């Protein structure tokens, strides 16, 4: 089975974003990691390779620093890697999807995995965009996957229920937490990853149709209110929750 996993490098989940004077994100102190949802994608690809044999190729788009996320995926066990060189990761998901789709078309992949969303800009558009551009089915927020022959059955989370979808291969799968338990890289995997050459390719990116005007910090939360410290305060608390906070 020939599998591709599209991965993104994102800031660590605990990053406190700092803004520059020009209201862009200050990257100087950021610890970058492999997007956590992409870890589920890599794990699922590796599990399928273990079951059916084949190869797992990771593909990422971005500047040099992105290679460390690629190395993380290689250390988990992916076989090959491609980096589409770009000065920045585009803010318009459509631009990234275009470049990824061009690369994916070269590979004749049976399955394409990616996280259901990246934890930085949270667009959650990539699975659908790739499906559309490649003209193949795309299923996202997948928590369970079974592949048999050239068909797959995916279970996805929807509001209050699970939806079960079947389609034929090739297909795009957006991984959700719960799909699997991503493995920790092994020492051997890490040493092997170092030796794998990342295939770095140039690409023409289309023009951004979305423009980020500026970033702002979220408004400061107003301080909480302590209404008392004994049972006597309960009626007042109920009144406030009902009348002011309007949550009950």
């Amino acid at each position, binding site marked *: 089975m020939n599998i591709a996993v599209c991965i993104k490098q994102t800031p*660590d989940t*605990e990053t406190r974003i700092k803004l520059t004077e020009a209201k862009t994100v200050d990257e100087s102190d950021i610890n970058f990691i492999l997007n956590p949802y992409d870890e589920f994608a890599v794990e699922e690809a590796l599990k399928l390779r273990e079951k059916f044999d084949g190869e797992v190729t990771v593909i990422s788009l971005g500047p040099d620093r992105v290679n*460390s996320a690629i*190395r*993380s995926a290689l*250390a988990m066990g992916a076989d090959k890697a491609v980096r589409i060189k770009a000065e920045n990761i585009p803010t318009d998901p459509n631009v990234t999807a275009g470049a990824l789709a061009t690369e994916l078309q070269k590979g004749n992949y049976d399955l394409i995995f990616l996280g259901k969303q990246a934890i930085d800009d949270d667009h959650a558009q990539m699975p659908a965009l790739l499906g559309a551009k490649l003209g193949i089915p795309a299923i996202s927020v997948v928590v369970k996957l079974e592949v048999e022959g050239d068909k797959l059955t995916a279970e996805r989370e929807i509001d209050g229920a699970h939806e079960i979808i079947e389609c034929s291969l090739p297909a795009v799968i957006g991984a959700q937490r719960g799909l699997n338990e991503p*493995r*920790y*890289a*092994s*020492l*051997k*995997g*890490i*040493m092997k*990853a*170092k030796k794998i050459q990342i295939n770095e390719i140039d690409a023409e990116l289309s023009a951004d149709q979305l423009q980020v005007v500026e970033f702002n910090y979220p408004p400061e939360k107003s301080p909480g209110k302590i209404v008392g410290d004994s049972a006597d305060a309960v009626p007042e608390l109920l009144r406030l929750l009902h009348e002011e906070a309007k949550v009950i």
Partner: protein
Amino acid sequence: MFKGFNFFSTDELLSEEERMVRDTVRQFVTKRYLPLAAAWHNKAEFPLEVIPELAKMGLLGVTIPEKYGASGSSYYIYGLAMQELERGDSGLRSFASVQGSLVMFPIYRYGSEAQKQKWLPQLASGNKIGCFGLTEPDHGSDPGGMRTTPRKTEKGWLLNGSKMWITNATIAHIAVVCAQTDEGIRGFLVETDRKGFSQNEIKGKYSLRASNTGELIFEDCFVPDENRLPEAKGLSAPLSCLNEARYGIAWGATGAAMACYNEALKYAKSRIQFGKPIAAFQLTQHKLVEIASEIVKAQLLNHQLGRLKDAGNAKYYHISMAKRNNVHQALKAARSARTILGANGITDEYQTVRHLLNLESVYTYEGTHDIHTLIVGEYLTGSSAFR
């Protein structure tokens, strides 16, 4: 998440690969071990369920070659991994130390090819657990006088005697046992299901509770000739294994110190007394600065020790000095950090007191602090104060 301690930019000393190993083990400890660390300590049990995970990451037998199913990594990487494991709990690191340095290493270094083929892959995969029996009830710091004796029979040996304070004693499948033959100290591989072999767990430990410790008893326990480690001759063999483990302990203790420092710093910044965070008081700052300085010194010591070890130039006295210094400083750091946590610091809501208790064992095992003083002292002065 725990970010380590990069005050002197020591991260720059690491290769990308070394950093990845450290960060991977760190993540594992944060996500998989720490949430249950207090529970395992309280239950006084080593969590067997983590063994397959340690094995999959390649943390059992880090420096043993790949052809035996192990990782074939550098000693530097071994050190970093031990640092991160002990940041979780000394018991977790002890398990990996014993399996890798005291069971797999002696088989690799002193075993026959058949013994290596038979045992190393199974030990690397965690399917088999090992223990190392050197200490006896009456022979701790002075193992040369050990009284476990094998008597030669036609096809093997009959072992009699007992070993005390043995990590993994009652969970092990195989014991590497040091015993006194007519020709001096020799090493034997003893499967724990052999007739005449029994084990007892030591209960009531206040320290290293999340680690299995016990006694090995041999009563006419027959061990065939092929179970003797052919190359292990004399006390220098077990001491060479201890050197491997002590090397890892020097790194491990530093991990424990970092955990305590980290916890105390965070607490000091948020705990308000007299209208200020306690971190703003001179006394608290003094404590934190002392701990931080000792961590930096230990990091730099470990760094150089690791590079020496990989170059084949780490001597026993280097390792003794590092074990002695780093464990002692970690223990002091844990005590001092504990005071910063006030009354909260005596509960299992915080890690520091657990590290403090654990480090008391680490201070004593693998050569007590005093014995390492005497080893280094002997080397520096040319006069032995203990032999």
